[in-house]
């Protein structure tokens, strides 16, 4: 692009279009997707308007401009319109979402950005995938196309959906596949909500494996949030007594916002990254077998506590690293008194009953972990408990925002023991630092990790689904609409493959 420098001529006021962010189009699917989507846009914009950025005015303006371009388009009267397409099979949630956005006065959804029908799909994945999908394909894709065409510079899709539901899941899998066919060069990240372990829908495990296996084929990255984990954050860290979906979604939105708000590319850069989605994917998910990403954000607390807390980067990063190693979902699980011992030599407890993934509330563990002695663990997934004490990562990305961020020392994340043998820390680990603080947290750190964290939950779900499948329970609900036993078997195979790949790290 020899003329790249000439593109500043594009008529965009003061900020050259070249420096603004590439745009992301969000597709909100089903009840879950729409509710979360609303919270995400709300969080992004309120952070963007926050007066406690702790940075210069010019910096703040660049931040705002970048955030706006990425997620919103501009209308004549100045109210930003979210770059989103809302899809649901019933109108109730969509209408709520639209009105909540409009009420905020700060932003809104596009007038013609929704697609909904009058009937639901009864949590039937097959119906969503085989009936709703093809029937409404044209309308939905046309909405998406219009949204993409509004973007000067289009980066990719962010698709929010649940894994185990009916509409959101089946239709989501179908839509993602369509996007793969029609936009093969655009990036696609699916944000999926992992259901509660003790969920209410009987067939949720079937839905989950079908969704996951389809998405693994057509999506580039799967960013997973577990309901259980977020629930715990609300309960223990935010001290919320009666946790509603709205609380959970706000925590989710906070975590996503801290990933997707503008960041600098390197210490000496003069402008914000243009293509965060692309950079993120290039760093974390280039390998086709390893696409599962988790997000961990620190600190996380209610506004009341926030006023009385101070943090150091050293403390935050130490906590974050412990969370990574122990596969903890939130900081308290690590145990605050072991933070003092920051030695790199870690010993693993060989007692399966104290496996790290069950370490909720355990304190006082001497945090010495040794990576698996034999080099490669045995093929197949023999004793998951034993093998996964030590959460091995394929790749990690740490994003730091706030005061004195340049002084933050991330050497702890470059330890080769944290990573798999075939990727050196210099390739596997990246850090993005930004001065501008996020959402009233003077310092915040988020870790996006491609590691073994989901192997156990995935294995559990696959196991349960298999047991049901072995007795052919409820299969007729799927075969009725074109999902055959073959498709189930394919799904089992692909997911076993995923589990095996992650176990063999």
């Amino acid at each position, binding site marked *: 692009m020899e003329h790249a420098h000439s593109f500043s001529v594009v008529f965009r006021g003061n900020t050259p279009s070249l420096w603004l962010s590439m745009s992301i189009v969000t597709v909100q699917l089903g009840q879950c997707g729409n509710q979360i989507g609303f919270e995400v846009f709300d969080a992004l914009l309120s952070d963007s308007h926050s007066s406690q950025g702790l940075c210069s005015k010019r910096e703040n303006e660049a931040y705002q401009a970048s955030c706006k371009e990425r997620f919103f388009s501009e209308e004549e009267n100045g109210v930003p319109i979210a770059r989103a397409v809302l899809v649901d099979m019933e109108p109730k949630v969509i209408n709520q979402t639209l009105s909540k956005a409009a009420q905020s006065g700060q932003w809104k959804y596009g007038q013609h950005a929704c697609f909904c029908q009058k009937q639901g799909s009864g949590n039937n994945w097959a119906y969503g995938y085989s009936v709703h999908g093809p029937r409404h394909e044209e309308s939905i894709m046309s909405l998406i196309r219009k949204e993409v065409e509004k973007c000067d510079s289009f980066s990719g899709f962010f698709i929010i959906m649940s894994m185990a539901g009916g509409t959101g899941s089946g239709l989501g899998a179908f839509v993602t596949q369509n996007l793969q066919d029609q936009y093969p060069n655009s990036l696609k990240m699916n944000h999926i909500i992992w259901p509660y372990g003790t969920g209410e829908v009987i067939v949720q495990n079937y839905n989950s494996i079908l969704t996951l296996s389809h998405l693994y084929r057509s999506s580039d990255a799967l960013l997973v949030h577990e309901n259980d984990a977020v629930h715990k954050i609300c309960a223990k860290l935010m001290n919320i007594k009666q946790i509603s979906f709205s609380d959970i979604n706000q925590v989710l939105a906070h975590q996503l916002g801290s990933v997707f708000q503008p960041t600098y590319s390197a210490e000496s850069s003069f402008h914000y990254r243009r293509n965060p989605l692309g950079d993120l994917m290039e760093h974390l998910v280039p390998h086709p*077998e390893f696409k599962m990403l988790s997000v961990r954000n620190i600190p996380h607390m209610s506004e009341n506590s926030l006023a009385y807390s101070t943090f150091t980067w050293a403390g935050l990063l130490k906590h974050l690293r412990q969370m990574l190693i122990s596969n903890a979902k939130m900081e308290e699980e690590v145990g605050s008194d072991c933070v003092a011992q920051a030695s790199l030599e870690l010993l693993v407890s060989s007692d399966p009953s104290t496996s790290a993934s069950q370490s909720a509330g355990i304190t006082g563990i001497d945090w010495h972990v040794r990576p698996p002695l034999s080099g490669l663990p045995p093929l197949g997934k023999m004793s998951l408990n034993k093998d996964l004490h030590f959460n091995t990562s394929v790749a990690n990305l740490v994003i730091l925002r706030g005061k004195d961020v340049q002084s933050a020392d991330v050497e702890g994340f470059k330890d080769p023991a944290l990573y798999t043998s075939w990727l050196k820390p210099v390739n596997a680990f990246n850090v993005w630092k930004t001065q501008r603080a996020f959402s009233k947290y003077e310092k915040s750190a988020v870790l996006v990790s491609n590691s073994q964290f989901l192997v156990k939950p995935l294995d559990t779900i696959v196991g349960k689904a298999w047991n049901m499948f072995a007795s052919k329970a409820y299969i007729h609900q799927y075969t009725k609409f074109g999902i055959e036993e073959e498709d189930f078997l394919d799904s089992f195979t692909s997911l076993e493959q995923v589990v095996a790949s992650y176990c063999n790290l």
Partner: protein
Amino acid sequence: MGRRRQRVDPAAGARAGALPEAIAALSRSLPSGPSPEIFRRAKFDRPEAVTLAQRTSALWQLLFRVLSPLPVGNALASLALEAQAHLVKSALCSQGYPRLALAQLPEDGSQGSRELLLALSWLLARGPVPEQMLAQARVPLGDEMTVCQCEALASPGPPAPHMEAEGPVDVRRVQWLMGKLQFRWRQLVSSQQEQCALLSKIHLYTRGCHSDQSLGHLSVTEAEMLRDPEGGQQLLQTLERENQRLEAVLAWRHTELVFWRWMDTVLGTCAPEVPAAASQPTFLPWVPERGGGELELVVRELQALEEELREAVERRRAAWEAKAGGCGRGPEWSAARRASREAVEKELGALQQCWKQDSGPARPHGPHRLVRREDGAAGERDLRAAEVIRTLRSQEACLEAVLRRLQGQCRQELARLVGALPGLIWIPPPGR
């Protein structure tokens, strides 16, 4: 210098300024060409310390510029002199340059300016080098794209530096790197689409601004010139420099005959080349005749060692050939190689045929300027976008058919290999 010239070519004395003129024109017509002084002195290989090194490295760099297919200003330009010299040697060798002496020159630029001068003349004689370099470096005023695929089918540039893997490499690491490459590729395609959208906008917004009615709107460069007068001045200067080089090329074409006559004399001053031996002669240390008996002993020992090594090499080679089943040698192999070469040529021919069929009337090569027109009127030599798109689409379809066929062959081969191993279940990875 003048005296020498008169001795060699008395007729040229009447046109005493002809040679310097010719050399000066040549020097001006080449990109950052070495000064005429360097050319003249290059004829003499005498190691006059500083100036020899200077002119030798200048000539290495010039040859590098001429032979490197990529435009200036990329990473290649910052290569060290040794690397540039090495690439020049291999590029010349692959083009069939006959003189061995060049291949044997040291790469540090300490000597050999005469050989380099000969190499440069060889290249100049083979093709229109100054014109080609001018075309490469021209300043496009319009927004351009190429329509023909000649460059895509042309041979690749100088060989990339060879990298050895240290020990066995985990295949997952290779897959990781491939994935990164694919992401970059997709981003490149997105960037190109973005560029097209922006170009379209600029063309739309600047309708009616161009003084040339047949164009009607500004290109990016032109719009930039209006927006930034300083940049416009720089553009003007660049264009003037380009003009000067054009004039130099014309002058060169008028006077080059004198240059060639002079180059004959340069060739004459070189020692005649010994016909190349089939293999590198082994180089034994030169021992003076009247050395002591001890030295003779050493010489004999060295000769015996050489004999031993040669035998060992022969044994190894025979063993390897037996193992590899005559791969690389033997009538079977050469027949197989010939067959595969013919197959490739046939495919390439078919591909080109397939493209020619759909391309309609023959199109001029080289870049075309993009012009947006509402009325759809097109001149004789203009190409319509719709036609070009159609042609490119059919070419794409041809290529995709070939790709699918090759993928099918790969799959069959894999299946065959897998089938040969009993008890192995083959689970292909999920398609992307």
